[in-house]
């Protein structure tokens, strides 16, 4: 099983999946400001081996960028891969209706949601909470 470095008390490694450079730069400033490390990946390279290589402590995905379907597919792929199923996931989305429809599945699989637009505090709180619950799926 991959070691995602969760035991480290210092900064965590956070993967941001997004196709918009402006969003990635924004996440970079917020995440690095919190003392964490960021890796960015686009939906064009949604290969799980890339996620495996990065070995993030947390993944943040955007459901609207690249199409909602692709975002869902990546979340489901991550949850189905035994060595990555316990990586905390935050989904950033404006798709309120989709989130409501999928609420049960999201809760069951420990996927947190940050609605767009969001404030810095909302994102920081979600990141902190997600990193505090690394073994949610194993509980």
């Amino acid at each position: 099983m991959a070691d995602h470095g969760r035991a480290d008390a210092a900064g965590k490694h956070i993967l941001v999946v997004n196709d918009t450079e402006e969003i990635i730069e924004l996440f970079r400033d917020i995440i690095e400001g919190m003392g964490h490390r960021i890796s960015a990946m686009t939906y064009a390279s949604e290969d799980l081996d890339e996620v495996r290589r990065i070995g993030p402590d947390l993944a943040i995905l955007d459901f609207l960028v690249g199409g909602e379907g692709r975002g869902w597919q990546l979340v489901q792929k991550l949850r189905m891969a035994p060595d990555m199923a316990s990586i905390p996931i935050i989904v950033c989305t404006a798709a309120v209706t989709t989130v409501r429809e999928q609420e049960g599945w999201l809760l069951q699989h420990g996927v947190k949601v940050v609605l767009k637009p969001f404030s810095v505090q909302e994102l920081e709180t979600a990141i902190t909470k997600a990193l505090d619950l690394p073994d949610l799926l194993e509980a």
Partner: protein
Amino acid sequence: VGKPAAEVHPVSDNRREALLLRTIRVSALTALQKPMSMDTREALRDRADVLLGDLEAKVILDGGDEETLAAIERTRRDVRG
């Protein structure tokens, strides 16, 4: 050691406020560029209004920097289209 608080805090507060505004602006405007239902679009705009209102109140409490307040108003207009 270091500068007195009065010299340091306004700078860091301004940087934080700039990040707060940029976050709302970028997360709202990039989302609005994507196809979505009218209801979702309206909900997104309403949510942006609330966040911008909260930030505006904070900026006013911190002394009401005119440049930041003008930037908030510009963002409000851009989000409303």
